[in-house]
């Protein structure tokens, strides 16, 4: 059923709020009173509830069912996190209140920083970036600042072919040229090609690990050494940190900076596209260049370092107004505390276990792109669809017809007709076999049928 737009059901003369009568008073707007019609329709409260309830019913989320999306970890969003984030003592406080009145909030930031640096084995973290891509910006800016501080005007950032699109976009944003590194036959960075590309003009490399093919970069320490030897820095895209948390510390791999998508690894809600939060951990070499603000411990308790110190402060400055995504810090910290050191490690293990189980069970029906083991996601290509007249897109749309969110399609770009599947904690009773997993039998049953019939919407509403 079509739900009309608010502009079709509401109008300027109805409202869903009651407010105290304003009465007469002398305005002090200096003649700038608004006089135009604003075009902002109002609805009564019950109409509003109904409208947005009905819109929500046209969505599909983690709570709705099976969600095998790859490349962007979709996690269960615990409601205890939503609850504590709404405690008045955490939600109803202003970023510019006196620090003496927000010691608990500063403690949340301090404790979150402790968990993140301990889990990554990195000495420092900047919490303020507002999302993953913003974290990338933060990391590359720190790299450029460090290079400039030593008078080194390098111009190139290396990015593997399989990288997320934000990586090259970020490098370009910071004034770098992007140079692509090809993948090897086993779905990893071609080490030889990388070494050949390194040189005095290379500021650094941006690498995702585990990479977007769902594989751990076996040569990562060698890569880090080579980059450092060439005078560059190693930026790691932490989008897939979930797969290794508690089992591998990025700091032990030679990484200089890595952002952590709190919604991918630490369960803050995806929310249909945000808000995100992308803290960046830094190596000792980059830590001095990290952006303000920071929480520090003083004699009278915790305080915020909100400004660059007058002299010698190497911070590249401020990335955002105020102190970042506090609401997400609370949720992420609640998630970490709920799991603990033991539970977080288990999360990584279960993610990898699920993906390998799926890879194994589907290997006979579909064509895995690379040999296992994979990490948290399994990559298939379209070889198994050869001569069926069915494309990767048909296949994904057929999954929608079956009532599931489709996997990621046509990404990464290094294999043909990619299907990237991350099995987000399946229901135990869904077995990953061709007889019960929706993916495998679909090409025959549905996708071909779709080519003759017109598409049907997934979720019909009456």
């Amino acid at each position: 059923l079509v739900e009309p737009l608010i502009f079709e059901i509401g109008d300027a003369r109805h409202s869903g709020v009651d407010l105290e009568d304003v009465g007469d008073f002398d305005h002090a707007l200096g003649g700038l009173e608004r006089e135009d019609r604003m075009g902002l329709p109002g609805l009564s409260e019950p109409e509003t509830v109904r409208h947005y309830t009905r819109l929500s019913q046209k969505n599909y989320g983690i709570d709705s069912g099976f969600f095998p999306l790859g490349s962007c970890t979709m996690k269960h969003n615990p409601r205890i996190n939503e609850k504590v984030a709404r405690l008045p003592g955490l939600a109803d406080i202003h970023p510019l209140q006196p620090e003496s009145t927000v010691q608990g909030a500063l403690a949340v930031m301090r404790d979150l920083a402790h968990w993140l640096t301990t889990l990554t084995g990195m000495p420092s973290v900047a919490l303020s970036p507002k999302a993953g891509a913003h974290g990338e910006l933060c990391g590359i800016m720190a790299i450029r600042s460090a290079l400039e501080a030593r008078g080194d005007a390098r111009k190139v950032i290396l990015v593997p072919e399989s990288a997320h699109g934000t990586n090259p976009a970020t490098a370009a944003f910071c004034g770098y040229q992007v140079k692509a590194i090809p993948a090897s036959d086993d779905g990893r960075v071609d080490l030889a090609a990388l070494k050949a590309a390194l040189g005095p003009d290379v500021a650094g490399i941006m690498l995702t690990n585990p990479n977007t093919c769902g594989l751990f970069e076996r040569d990562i320490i060698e890569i880090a050494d080579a980059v450092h030897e060439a005078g560059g820095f190693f930026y790691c895209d932490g989008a897939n940190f979930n797969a290794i948390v508690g089992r591998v510390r990025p700091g032990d791999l030679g990484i200089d900076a890595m952002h952590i998508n709190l919604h991918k690894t630490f369960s803050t809600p995806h929310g249909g596209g945000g808000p995100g939060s992308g803290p960046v951990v830094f190596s000792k070499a980059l830590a001095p260049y990290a952006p303000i603000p920071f929480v520090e411990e003083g004699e009278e308790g915790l305080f915020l370092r909100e400004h660059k110190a007058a002299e010698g402060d190497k911070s590249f400055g401020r990335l955002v107004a105020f102190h970042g995504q506090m609401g997400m810090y609370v949720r992420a910290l609640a998630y970490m505390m709920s799991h603990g050191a033991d539970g977080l490690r288990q999360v990584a293990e279960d993610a990898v276990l699920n993906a390998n189980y799926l890879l194994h069970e589907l290997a006979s029906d579909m064509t895995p792109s690379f040999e296992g083991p994979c990490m948290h996601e399994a990559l298939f290509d379209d070889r198994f669809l050869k001569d069926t007249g069915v494309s990767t897109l048909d296949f994904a749309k057929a999954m929608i017809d079956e009532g599931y969110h489709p996997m990621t399609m046509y990404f990464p770009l290094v294999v043909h007709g990619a299907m990237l599947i991350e099995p987000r904690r399946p229901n135990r009773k869904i077995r990953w076999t061709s007889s019960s997993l929706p993916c495998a039998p679909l090409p025959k049953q549905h996708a071909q049928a779709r080519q003759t019939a017109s598409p049907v919407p997934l979720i019909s509403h009456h």
Partner: protein
Amino acid sequence: MRYLPHNETDRRAMLSAIGVQSIDDLFRDVPPAARLDALLDLPLHKSEMEVDRLFRDYARKNVPAAEHAFFVGCGAYRHHVPATVDHLIQRGEFLTAYTPYQPEIAQGTLQYLFEFQTQVANLLGCDVANASLYDGSTACGEAILMARRITRGRKRAILAGGLHSHYGDVAQTMTRFGDEDVVRLAPSPDDAQGDMDRLIAAIDDNTSCVVVQTPDMFGHLHDLGPIAEAAHAKGALLVAVVTEVVSLGAVRSPGEMGADIVVAEGQSIGNSLNFGGPYLGLFATRAKFVRQMPGRLVGETVDADGQRGFVLTLSTREQHIRREKATSNICTNSGLCSLAFTIHMTLLGEEGLRKLALLNHRQATRLKAALSGIKGVEVLNNQFFNEVSLRLDRPAAPVVEALAGRKILAGVPASRLYPDRDDLANILILATTETVSDGDIAALSDALADIMQAEL
């Protein structure tokens, strides 16, 4: 672990199906030197009850706004958000949804974003708005970069002295490694008109844009008309910044006054203070500039059956298609915050927003009246919306601390934002919203008068 469906029996069965001995076999690609065998030095898992208790402990160490007379503003404002808003954004179908790349199963997200964009464009007085950015400060930075792209060859953005200092800082950071030059005029809380005059005087043929906030960070309202005229006469764009969008229920929109790009912090509508985030960047502009706009845009379309539907549009500007040639590196928007905004705005409607704005303004006029007679206190604003600045006869920061001890959070001392500027040390910035009662104002006025009686 309550969030994990498997128990040990399940895990053993799966390992055996895969044909490996242990989970370690699946991590065999990790270099041995980097394998963690033991648990990290962090606490073990906790029950939900314990987590709940720990966060109540954190919360207890803060003073929530509701428990004090509360006058803190400066870019984030405390408003009453109807309970309906928070209820609806927590529906799992909204909360746990992915980015709407698959329109068939994301029509809910796409339609509300479409409604949101239209509300934002209408509110700001522009042709088109995007699906939101991170917050007002990054939206402002993006606007400067966009103005640079539009006015090819021009390299200087001029920031008015009344622009929120954090916004100025962020603009400097975001342009730091480009070829853009950012000029920040000095803040002048006592001389709002002078700020505008200096801004107009600074515009030259190399100016890509001027950036003006209204009401500005000291509470002054500005008529953007003359600035737009001056900027356009020199071929520059006017970027308008609004940190308190509720003001647009009472004050002429920046678009109507001639702004080319309007950015705003949308937190005031639908969103809590949250100690600074997540907030909501609003971004609107003229139709002709739409292809240079950063961020997501949702458009209306018709499906195969002729039914209306909504899709992400103009993605060719975006990083997931264009990679290094993208308009910006922004990927995420502020989905749930924009949902909260659009629901609250729908509840308000035009009539409700006007009334809400006037209530805010009325309380500010009452605040000004209540404080004007106090010895050692000068109210600096003649044209204002819901925020005013005081010049005290002494540094403001200790006064704020003293008032906090009396259960009054009496705004922001300018020194918090400009620690290096001695000329601003005595400036105190106070906001009023509909949540500030007459009793709160009287309490502040009494306490401030009392404190100011003390000798310097």
